[in-house]
């Protein structure tokens, strides 16, 4: 059992309620077995052979949003989400994955080019990029399309060649498959991604969402060492671009609300970049959401909306309720996937302008110099 590697984590947390409050799922359902303590507790009954795993436990394990908020406030390196991932791997191997999980896995595999080597080879061979091109790894969505068009325009203004590789329907297939417990499929996607990295020419490869990049850089099995310098997350690239090419951005003392992205984790080295850009560079007056920073709340995550949409909707509704308090209509979050998640709520979609960093900096504030 993969979960056996996490017995220490389970033992540490199964009696400790101090992480319960950050858990977006538990904040919505209020149910003890959705909390980090509750999850560790019920799973301890299974690993200690006191109870047999059943449908309800599996449901609770898949209801975790893997947002890593509980990990971020942990005082040591014990990680509830890593234990959940291991438990899901076991569940998949035991062939006990719930129906919606299997359906989503199939949909990702069918609708994402990175899942299939033939399509990956096509993507690579169709690329017209040169060693000077900035290649943007994008997926099919309104918000990511918008961001790409801004990037493209800005790069063109600076005579930098730019190309897009569109991977398909989902933003981060490797991370999503891993979340579902299909580690082998996830590794396969990473290998296919490596094929693209090795066979496409680029100066920089920009990942529009951070999830798969993060996995790739941490992966023990794929070898991209000598190319990893050129792989960047979208707002790392944005920071670099501003430092190198944009001499001045008009300061605008406008009030905006800033929502931490779930993909932008507190432990990441680029966690503070969006704030730096919004405040120092663009001069925005930002109002932080209550759960931002150390105790970041979740935008709804990668897979939860397909598995337990009631919980997903509930989480977004909590965000929407908080926003009502502030009387500010412009919301910035540094990830297109978060924008899509937030816009599933009609109230948010209709009453707020929810935009990404690129839009905040370059459509509201035109680049100067």
């Amino acid at each position: 059992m993969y979960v056996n590697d996490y017995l220490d984590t389970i033992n540490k947390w199964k009696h400790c309620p101090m992480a319960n409050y950050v858990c977006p799922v538990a904040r919505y359902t209020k149910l003890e077995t959705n909390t980090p303590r509750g999850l560790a507790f019920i799973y301890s009954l299974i690993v200690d052979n006191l109870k047999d795993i059943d449908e309800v436990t599996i449901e609770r394990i898949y209801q975790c949003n893997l947002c890593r908020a509980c990990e971020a406030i942990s005082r040591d390196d014990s990680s509830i989400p890593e234990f959940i991932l291991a438990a899901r791997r076991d569940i998949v191997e035991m062939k006990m994955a719930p129906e919606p999980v299997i359906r989503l896995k199939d949909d990702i595999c069918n609708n994402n080019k990175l899942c299939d080597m033939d399509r990956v080879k096509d993507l690579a061979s169709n690329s017209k990029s040169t060693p000077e091109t900035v290649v943007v790894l994008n997926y099919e969505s309104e918000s990511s399309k918008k961001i790409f068009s801004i990037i493209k325009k800005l790069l063109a203004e600076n005579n930098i060649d730019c190309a897009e590789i569109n991977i398909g329907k989902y933003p981060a297939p490797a991370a999503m498959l891993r979340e579902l417990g299909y580690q082998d499929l996830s590794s396969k996607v990473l290998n296919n991604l490596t094929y693209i990295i090795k066979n496409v020419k680029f100066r920089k490869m920009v990942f529009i969402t951070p999830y798969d990049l993060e996995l790739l850089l941490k992966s023990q099995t794929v070898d991209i060492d000598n190319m990893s310098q050129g792989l960047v997350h979208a707002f790392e690239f944005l920071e670099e671009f501003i430092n190198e090419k944009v001499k001045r951005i008009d300061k605008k003392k406008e009030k905006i609300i800033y929502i931490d992205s779930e993909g932008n984790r507190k432990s990441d080295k680029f966690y503070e970049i969006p704030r730096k850009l919004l405040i120092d560079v663009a001069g925005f007056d930002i109002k932080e959401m209550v759960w931002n920073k150390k105790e970041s709340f979740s935008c709804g995550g990668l897979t939860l909306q397909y598995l337990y949409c009631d919980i997903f909707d509930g989480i977004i509704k909590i965000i929407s309720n908080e926003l009502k308090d502030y009387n500010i209509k412009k919301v910035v979050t540094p990830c297109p996937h978060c924008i899509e998640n937030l816009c599933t709520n009609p109230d948010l979609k209709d009453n707020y302008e929810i935009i990404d960093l690129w839009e905040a900096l370059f459509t509201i504030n035109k680049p100067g110099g």
Partner: protein
Amino acid sequence: MHEFFIERVKNELIRIVGENNLYISDFDKSAYSVDVWSVSRKWVDKGLIKELPDFVVLPENVQQISKIIKLANIYSIPVITRGGGAGGLGGGIPFFGGIVIDIKKLDKIISLDEKSLNIKVQTGIMQIDLEKYLNSRGYTLNHLPASIYCSTLGGFLSTRGSGVLSSKYGKIEDMVLSLEVVLPTGEIINTLPVPRHSAGPGIEHFFIGAEGTLGVIVSAVLKIFYLPEVRYFDAYIFDDLHLALEASREVMINGLEPSVLRVYDEGDTRDVVKKELGIDVNNGSYVVIGFDGFKSIASAQRNMAIKIFKKYKARDLGEKLGNQWWENRYDPYYPPHTLESKRDLYGVIDTITTHDNIEKLYLSMKKELEEKFSDWNIIFTAHFSHWYTWGASVYPRFIVRKPPENPYEFFRLNNAIWDAAVRVILENNGILSEHHGIGFHLSPYMREQYKEAFLVLEKLKKGLDPKNIMNPAVLGFEL
């Protein structure tokens, strides 16, 4: 309960709260069969969970709670109210099955009165959410317990909880203006809108500290404060505990209103302060003292306190260490620091008494436990963290690093240690608990504590809860 009967109650509960708010799977119920009482946790570790509730419900409004309780009365089913499940004395364990009402969906802020500075709020709210809501508007409740992150307002009201600023702002009961309560027979009542009056006894006090035995507290009006202009924290070390206690008493009786006053005994000074807060001090008694409010007033109070401390030859360790305590104060409650995660047998026997008894009580308990349980290499330390003009609380902690593996022996040893400690408390005019409540564990001592006066509580219980369904087995009430 017979299966047919379970099915009948289940259907009626579904009619009240809806299918989505009722949980009956074994796993869900198991997680509601324990709180953080170390014995209950040891019990489940060993596979001995026996006391499962029959139903877990998460009502969405007060009317639903009222209907659930009326239903429970019809069938004489126990009702256990559950907040964050962080109570430390087994008060929320469904020993006799029944219905666990998890109250956390009642978490709404009802109104904020910025003129009279009070807030009306439902009691299922997590304390941290309430505090963050207030902070974002420039206010605070000034109730900052270590479990702010895992307990509900209702839990604190039901156990008369204390936060780290209690020496200035009081305990949770001092913050209550009025309460809304669902009685054990299902009626919904409100206490008078303000607590200071002469229209009879304040009946809100029947419910504060009642640990769910006299009803479910569903909302409360609480006083709030402006966030302070300044917060000062200073650290000192005294040559010994006696000097530290005397100096602290003098600060209190002179009305200097420190927001924080924490006196650590020699053991805590060495162990807790050094290991857990990463602060390097060797011996003596470590003290953190804090003042807050307007700068001019807080500075004046601080200067007066410094004078008193100097008189007792306190060494100033500086603001940095004081601030470090404030910044890191929650760290000891997270793994890997928690005693639970180390599998120790431990207990915190918080008690309170008047200044004239405090040192005697502490020394007697230390002597009694260290001598009686020397075979178990018991470690006994304490700090004194909630101060009043008339007395202070002692927060003793015992640890047995190698407790018996057998859960029954573990339970017996735990009981023997507590029993010895409780005897010392009762002999020295102490109270069984300052802020953790009584729960199941201390329940047998309540009659001894109250003597004849327990009759008042008993009559209250019988009158309000004739079927004895609300949280049976806690607070000393008969079954």
